[in-house]
């Protein structure tokens, strides 16, 4: 699987015809919906990313109409006017939002229920969905799977890629199996033994992308105690070694029209001590990711930079990169380890492209082109030709 994926980036000519599904030549999807929000800890940041995207797409040549679709904390879908500002969401669903239903199935999608004189419900005619949901079901494969069943093209990771990105344990396992450098990461449960590496440890929830529930623990006993006390660890937890001298390095990668890597950033801690990048550290500031404090480009050794870029290319292969993802690394200045992948990063990480720069609009337009040219999933029932059923005999006899 890894070998095949690598070939994809080396041999673009074969790319379209080798994979399943149709490739549409040229042509941007004209009618686009931007989805954002969702039942997620990153709901608010997702609103910022989504509104920025709506704003940028309205000015994009080739895009006909843009719809702004808000996914509320309780899981309901709404359409809001494209010019809606972030302040309108402070108290919850904006007052001028129109409630929609989402139907997951052929001919489905986002539907406006009938009201008043218009009795019939009305499906929004869309060519593609630009997904700006961070965390939760918008980034863990749930929304992706639901959209797959409707046949609507969408940007960003496929259901599988999204689920992989949200599972720290599975991602780490994949990286280690591929022979790439990563810090040890082991599952922690009630009956776990002490890990093979010494404390202190970083304790993290296994699933989910936010910093909620992440903390440094001094020893295994404390880790076990936190596992019992902290409900954020209920669904699974992982332990990693804590290296205080290590700092974060991040870069973004996008896959269309070809693999392209961004500049490397070193996020700055706003609080002293504790090198863990907390939620307030990541997203402080009124414009989401775009105004969080940072060192961009990171002042690191050119050799380290080259190593990171080489690793990024490998990771792009093994996660089957689609859309734009941000790869997070840990380094002490000399060695570098792969930490996490973020398949729908805040502000879609467009600010990380500095030299050459990348306009947000261009990024979005190319992601949309990819959405239609590289369908996320195509289902087929090839092989079910009835033969098994014909010779089956009676079901009762099978059950004996």
């Amino acid at each position: 699987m890894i070998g095949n994926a690598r070939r994809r980036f080396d041999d673009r000519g074969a790319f379209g015809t080798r994979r399943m599904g149709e490739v549409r030549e040229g042509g941007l999807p004209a009618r686009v919906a931007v989805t954002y929000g969702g039942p997620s800890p990153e709901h608010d940041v997702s609103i910022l990313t989504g509104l920025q995207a709506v704003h940028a797409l309205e000015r994009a040549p080739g895009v006909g109409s843009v719809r702004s679709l808000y996914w509320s904390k309780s899981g309901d879908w709404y359409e809001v006017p494209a010019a809606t500002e972030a302040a309108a969401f402070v108290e919850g669903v904006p007052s001028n939002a129109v409630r929609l239903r989402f139907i997951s199935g052929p001919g489905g999608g986002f539907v406006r229920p009938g009201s008043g004189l218009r009795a019939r419900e009305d499906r929004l005619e869309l060519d593609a969905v630009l997904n700006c949901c961070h965390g939760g079901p918008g980034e863990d494969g749930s929304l992706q799977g639901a959209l797959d069943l409707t046949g609507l093209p969408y940007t960003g990771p496929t259901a599988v890629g999204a689920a992989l990105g949200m599972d720290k344990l599975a991602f780490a396992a994949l990286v280690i199996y591929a022979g790439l450098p990563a810090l040890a990461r082991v599952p922690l449960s009630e009956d776990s033994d002490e890990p093979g590496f010494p404390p202190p440890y970083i304790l993290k929830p296994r699933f989910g992308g936010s910093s909620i529930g992440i903390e440094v623990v001094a020893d295994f006993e404390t880790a076990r105690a936190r596992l019992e006390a902290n409900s954020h660890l209920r669904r699974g937890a992982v332990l990693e070694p804590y290296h205080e001298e290590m700092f974060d390095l991040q870069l973004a990668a996008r896959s269309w029209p070809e693999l392209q890597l961004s500049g490397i950033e070193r996020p700055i801690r706003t609080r002293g001590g504790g090198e863990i990048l907390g939620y307030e550290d990541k997203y402080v500031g009124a414009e989401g990711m775009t105004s969080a404090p940072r060192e961009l480009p990171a002042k690191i050794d050119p050799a380290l930079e080259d190593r990171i870029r080489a690793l990024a290319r490998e990771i792009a292969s093994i996660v089957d990169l689609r859309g734009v993802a941000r790869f997070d690394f840990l380094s002490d200045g000399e060695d570098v380890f792969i930490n996490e992948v973020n398949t729908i990063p805040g502000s879609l990480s467009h600010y990380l492209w500095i030299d050459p720069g990348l306009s947000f609009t261009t990024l979005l337009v190319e992601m949309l082109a990819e959405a239609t040219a590289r369908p996320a999933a195509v289902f087929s029932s090839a092989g079910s030709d009835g033969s098994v059923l014909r010779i089956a005999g009676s079901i009762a006899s099978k059950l004996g």
Partner: protein
Amino acid sequence: MTALSAVALGASVLAIVSGDLRWLRVAQREHYLPGAAVRFAWRWWVSTPLDAALGLAALACAGLSAFVPVIAIGAAAVASFAPLGLGIRGRTSGLAWTRRMSLVALLTALLQGAAIALSAVVGGLSGAVVAGAVSALLGPLFIDAALAALRPLEDVLAQRYVQQAERLLGRVRPLVVGITGSYGKTTTKNYIAYLLGGDRNVVASPRSFNNRAGLTRTVNEQLTPGTDVLIAEMGAYGPGEIAALCSWLQPEVVVITSIGPAHLERFGTLERTLEAKAEITSGARVVVLNVDDTRLAGLAKRLEGTKKVVRASGSDATADVAVLAHFEGLELKISGRASGTALVEPGSPTPIRTNAACAAAVALELGIASDVVARRLATLPSVPNRLQPYRADGGYLVLDDTFNANPAGARHALEVLGSEAPGGRRVVVTPGMVELGKSQSAENAAFAEAARRVATDVVVVGRTNRAALVKGCGAAGTGPALELVRRREEAVAWVREHLGPGDAVLFENDLPDHFP
């Protein structure tokens, strides 16, 4: 004759529209409580001699228009443009055309139309003209009548949302924390959400969503399966409201933060305020009380034996949960035992200790380990606009306490101002405090007297508390220099013009612009 009458009637109808729009905005800002429009109308009409004179003149015109119809135009003009200063749009917020507002506006218009029609039947065109002028001038009365008439309907409609919320609460079964008190509810709620958030899935009601409409909306829009804790801030303007909220929220752990003169004009006395807030304890299992407040200390004694009472304090080391000042930060003490210290970073605002103690008590009750609570006290989120200091472009220090309307908090703010700008000018900008019932004048005068001791200048904004504040500042020459302005923008402009490096200004409270 008839043409002039028709013109006069037309002018009155226009006056009804423009007048009603202004008073409807006041009614909306005052939460649609019947009686609010008339109360504020009275405040505005008597706020200056000019307004009072115009009002009387207009009434006279309305009466005389029975004989000379065209005089009604004078009444209509006054009703449209006076009281001076009350705009249609407003600075803090315009009129929001919600379903509820549309209904109130419609009913008001119908009532006024009916008054005119009835007068037309009885007195012909001249009767209609008089009725038009009077309806325009007495718009607030019609609005209050509409509010009173629609209240039962609103209750019925609200019940639908309450039932939906009840069903959701029954399915999700979160642990509900209820918070009430005259002051400090929002700060305490934010502290609790922060102390719990790292360990539990928490939904907290947003700022100013502390009534039935806001809380049902919070539950219906945000309570998802998997939520461990719901923190509901409960406000009350009168007795029975908290009990009504508790009937469907059923909080298990409750907090009362303070008893003070907030909304005293609706409660009447501080004892009635205490009883109304204490309604939150009736079904609760655990009651957290800020015992630095003597009335709440008394309530703690009363409830002992019937409930688990947790005494929280920001100064008494013997309380059940205490958050005390400590070198470089805070110290957490549980039943007198030292349980951890929190180093607050220099430059960060220090948390409010009584509220932090109440929040810590709730967190401990919900099973958060004491060392975790102590550690998190160091990074409690600061409350915006609550005594946040910053340096303005002109070099002077600005203390922003605009969201505070608490007399004790105001005293504290004066102390902070007193410790700044030695040798420079120290300015207090304030419209005073409101909704203090009979104590309002006395409280504002007392605040001004306290301000005398630290401030070199006092800028009084608006007319609502002007008399009391001026009195408290003392005779000219003996106290701080007084500057009287109509609106906050003028105060800000004055500050920009007169202050420079080495000076400090305290903005204490800010009144929405539907106050005169």
